[in-house]
C-alpha cells in the first residue's frame, strides 16, 4: 500500500446517484482501514460496492479514489468462473495483471472483431500454456489449504457447496494481492463455527499486505469484530458514517442503534419508570449494560421472556401504569419466568453520560 494513502480516503463520493432509488445523491468518504457497510436488505449496500468496484458507474455525481485495477472484488454472487476449477481461479488471480487489457482498436468494431476471431482460431490451434509456477502462484494456491479447499481444487464452481463457493471467492480476492479488497457479504454461506477462522485469514492478509477492506454485512458481530469504520445505509441514503465502536456505544438514534444488534433506547422519562437509577439523557443501553434481577416486590412484572444465548429478550409490565415494554439484557442463563417480579439496573460507566 502506498505510504501517502494513510491520510487520503480510499474513495470520495459526492452527490452520487444510481438508478432512481438505489443510491440517492450520497456523499461520503471511505477511509483507509476496514470499513463495514451496514444496512437492511435493499438499503443500497451492493449498489455502493458495485460503484466502488467500478462494476457500475454513477448516473449522477462524482466518485474519486482508487482505480478499479487496484481492487479485488468479491461480488454478492461470488462471481466465480463456471468453467474454471478452484485451482484455476487462484492461478489466474495470482497471475501478473494485464498492462494492455485487450486488443485496443478504439471504436473500430469490425477490425476488432476480426482480430478477436483470429485470436480465437489461434487459441484453438495453440492453446495457451499454463503460466509457470512461481512463488507468488504457489503462495496463492496455499490459500486453498487455508480455506479448506485443497481437496476441492479440481472442482468446478457448480460442484462446490455454497459455503465452499463463498470461501473460494474470498480466497481468489486475497490471491489478487490488491491495495483494496471489496467484499459483498463475504463468507455469508459459511457455517458460523468456522467463520472466525476464515476472518482470521483475512485479518492476517490485511496485516501482511497493508491492504484496506470494505465489506458489507448483515451480521453485527462481524461488523463490530472486523471493522474500524461503519457506513450505514437506508433506502439509498447514507444515515451515518463513523467509527464502529462509537456507533455501537453511542448511536445517534434508535434506528442506528439497531444496525449493530439489539439495544434498549431509553429516554430519561422511561428511565424513571423502568430503571432503578436515573439517566440524564436519552441513550442506548446495550444488553450487556442492563441487568435484570429477581425481587419479591416491585412494579415490574415479567410478561414474556425469550433466551437467545448471548442475550435475552424480556417483555415487562409496569403494573402501576399498566405499560409494557421489551428489553434486551444479557443473563447468564435462562432463568426468568412469566409472572416473576424483577428490577432493571443500568450499568453506567463514568465515560458514558
Amino acid at each position, binding site marked *: 500500500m502506498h505510504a501517502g494513502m494513510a491520510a487520503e480516503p480510499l474513495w470520495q463520493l459526492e452527490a452520487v446517484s444510481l438508478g432512481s432509488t438505489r443510491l440517492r445523491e450520497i456523499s461520503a468518504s471511505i477511509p483507509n482501514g476496514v470499513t463495514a457497510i451496514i444496512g437492511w436488505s435493499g438499503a443500497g449496500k451492493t449498489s455502493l460496492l458495485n460503484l466502488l468496484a467500478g462494476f457500475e458507474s454513477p448516473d449522477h455525481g462524482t466518485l474519486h479514489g482508487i482505480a478499479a485495477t487496484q481492487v479485488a472484488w468479491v461480488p454478492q454472487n461470488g462471481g466465480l468462473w463456471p468453467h474454471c476449477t478452484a485451482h484455476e481461479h487462484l492461478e489466474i488471480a495470482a497471475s501478473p495483471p*494485464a498492462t494492455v*487489457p485487450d486488443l485496443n482498436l478504439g*471504436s473500430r468494431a469490425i477490425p476488432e472483431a476480426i482480430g478477436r476471431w483470429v*485470436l480465437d482460431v489461434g487459441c484453438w490451434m495453440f492453446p495457451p500454456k499454463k503460466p509457470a509456477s512461481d512463488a507468488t502462484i504457489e503462495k496463492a494456491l496455499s490459500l486453498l489449504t487455508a480455506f479448506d479447499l485443497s481437496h476441492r481444487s*479440481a472442482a468446478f464452481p*457448480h460442484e462446490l457447496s455454497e459455503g465452499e463457493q463463498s470461501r473460494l471467492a474470498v480466497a481468489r480476492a486475497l490471491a489478487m494481492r490488491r491495495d483494496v479488497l471489496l467484499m459483498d457479504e463475504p463468507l455469508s454461506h459459511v457455517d458460523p463455527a468456522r467463520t472466525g477462522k476464515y476472518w482470521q485469514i483475512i485479518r492476517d492478509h490485511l496485516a501482511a499486505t497493508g491492504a484496506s477492506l470494505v465489506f458489507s454485512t448483515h451480521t453485527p458481530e462481524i461488523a463490530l469484530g472486523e471493522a474500524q469504520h461503519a457506513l450505514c445505509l437506508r433506502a439509498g441514503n447514507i444515515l451515518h458514517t463513523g467509527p464502529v465502536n462509537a456507533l455501537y456505544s453511542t448511536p445517534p438514534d434508535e434506528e442506528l442503534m439497531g444496525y449493530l444488534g439489539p439495544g434498549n433506547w431509553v429516554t430519561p422519562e422511561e428511565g424513571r419508570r423502568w430503571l432503578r437509577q436515573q439517566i440524564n439523557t436519552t441513550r442506548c443501553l446495550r444488553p450487556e449494560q442492563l441487568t435484570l434481577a429477581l425481587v419479591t416486590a416491585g412494579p415490574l412484572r415479567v410478561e414474556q421472556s425469550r433466551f437467545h444465548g448471548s442475550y435475552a429478550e424480556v417483555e415487562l409490565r409496569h403494573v402501576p401504569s399498566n405499560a409494557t415494554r421489551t428489553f434486551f439484557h444479557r443473563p447468564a442463563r435462562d432463568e426468568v419466568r412469566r409472572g416473576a417480579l424483577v428490577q432493571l439496573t443500568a450499568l453506567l460507566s463514568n465515560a458514558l453520560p
Partner: protein
Amino acid sequence: MSRLVEDLVHPVTGISLAWGFLPNGSEPMGIGAQTTLALVRAIFIATLATLASGPTSRWLATQRGRARLLAWGLLVVPFFTPTLLISYGMVRFSIALIVSTWGHEALYVGVLGLKLFPVAVVIRVLLPPPLSAEGCYTYHLAAPASPWSQRWFHLRAAGQGPWIAAGLVFLLAFADFELASLWSVKTWTMAVFDAQIGGFALTDTLRLAAFPFCIQLAVLVALILSRKDSAIGRTESSFPSRFKKPHGAPTTAAVQTRKILPLRANPSAHEFASGLKPVRDEAPMAQRSLCAPFKSLCALCGKIDFPLWLHRCRAPFLPWLYLAISAAFVTLIPLGIVIVQAIPGVPRLFENFVLGRELGASLLFAVGATAAAAALVTFTPRSRVPALFLAAPGLFGALTISLIVLALFQVPMLRELYDTPVPLVLALTVLLLPLAFLLGALWLRQTAPLYIARQIPSRRLIWELQNRPRAIACAILFCWAWFDFTASSILAPTGFTPVFVRLHNLAHYGQTAVLSAMMIAAFATPVAVLLLTGTALHLYARGHGR
C-alpha cells in the same frame, strides 16, 4: 440471328461465370458443387445469426412489459411466416432480381437469414452465457497480461449458446428446400428433388443425398458431443427440468402426497443454460475437441465485449430498427400486399368457396401432428438420449424426411397405410419434434410455483403457470404444421390436399384478387382456430379457478 434486338446482343460479361458456384455455367453443377454452395450459404447465415444473436438476446432480456411483447412478436414472426406468402408477396421484386445472379442470391440468403435469425436468438435466450456479469468483471480485474490467455478464457466461458445456435441455424439453412424451390436457387435439396423428378430410384436419390446428409450428421454429432465436452455445468442433465420430472408428478393427486419438494426440478433459465454434463477433467486443454474449430468460431459471438459496438454507438434504437425491418420485409410487406389485393376478391371467394376441403385437410394434419409431437415430448423419458434421438431427424429437412417416409410406406407391411393420412402425420410429427423439444425446454418446465399451485390446488394458477404455456407451445406447433408445404405435397393422400399445396398450385398464375383472398383465408383459419380455442380455454380456466 435474324431479329433479336440489339439490347440482347452484348458480349458475355463473364460476371455470372466468375463465381463458379453460381448458376448458368457452361458445365453442369454437380451435387458436390451444389452442396458446397449450400454449405457456404449456411455457414454465412449461421455465423451472422450467431454474431447478431448475442447482443439481441441480451437486449431482449432488458425489455419489459408491452415493449418486450412487441419485441418478441417482431422477432419471431419472420420465422413463422410461410415461404409461400413471402414468395407470393415478393414475386415482382424477386422477378426483377432474376437477371442479377448476385441480386437473386442476396435476396435468397437475406430472406433465409432473416427467417432463421430468431432461432439463434431464442437459443441464446435459452442458453445464456454461464459466466455472470460479476464473474466477467472480476476476471477483467484479475485478467492476466496475455491477450491469448484472455481470449482462451472467454472462449471457454462463452458456454454452449453460440455453438448450439450456430449449429441449429446451419442445419436449417443447409436443409432449406421450400424457399430454394420457390426462387429456383441452386442447392443440394433441389438437386435431390430433380433426381426424384428425373426418375431416379429412391435409393439412388438418397445415395445422391449421402454427402450433404453426412455433413448434417456431422454437425448434429458435433452438437451432441459439445454437450459432453463442456465443463460449464451446474446440473447433471443438460435437458430442462421437465425431463427430470418424477414419474407421476403431473397429477395433482400425486403431487399432494409428495412430501419433499423436488428442488432439482426447478432450475432457473440460467441453470438450464449451463445445465451441461460436467467433465471431471482438471486440465482446461481437455475441452479441446473435434468440434472446437467450429465452436471457436461460434464462441466468438459469445464473447461478452464483442457486442459492445452496439453500446458504443449509443443507438438503442438499432435492435428495434432491425426487428422492424426484418418483420416488415419478411412478413408485413408481403402480407400487406396480399391483403390489399385480397379485398376485391373476398366477395368472389365467398360466392364460390372452394377451399373448404383443403382447409379441413390442413386442420386434420396440423392437429394430428401437433398432438403426436406434444405427446412424444410429454412422454419422452427423462434421459436426454431418447429426446435427442427423437428430435434430431427433424433437422434433416422436410424433403429428406418426406422421401424417407414415402419409401417406408412402400414397404409391403406398411403399404396398406400408404395414401392415407398416416404418412403425412408421421412426417409432420418428425418435422415438428425439434421445435417441440425446444418449446418444451422453454416452457414445459416443472417449477416451484407450479408445484405449490398444484398443492393448493388452484385451477387458475395451474392454467397460468402450466397449461397456458403448453397451449401456446401447441399453438406454435400447430401453425408450423399448418404452413408446411414440402411434406404435404409429397405425402398427402389423394383427394385430401392441404390448403398450401393447393395454393401453391394456384400461385403460379400470378397475383389475382381471388388468389390473394384464398391466401388470406388460409392464413386466417389457423388464427381463428387458435383464437377460438384459446378463448374457450381461458374462459374455462377463469370460470373454474380460484
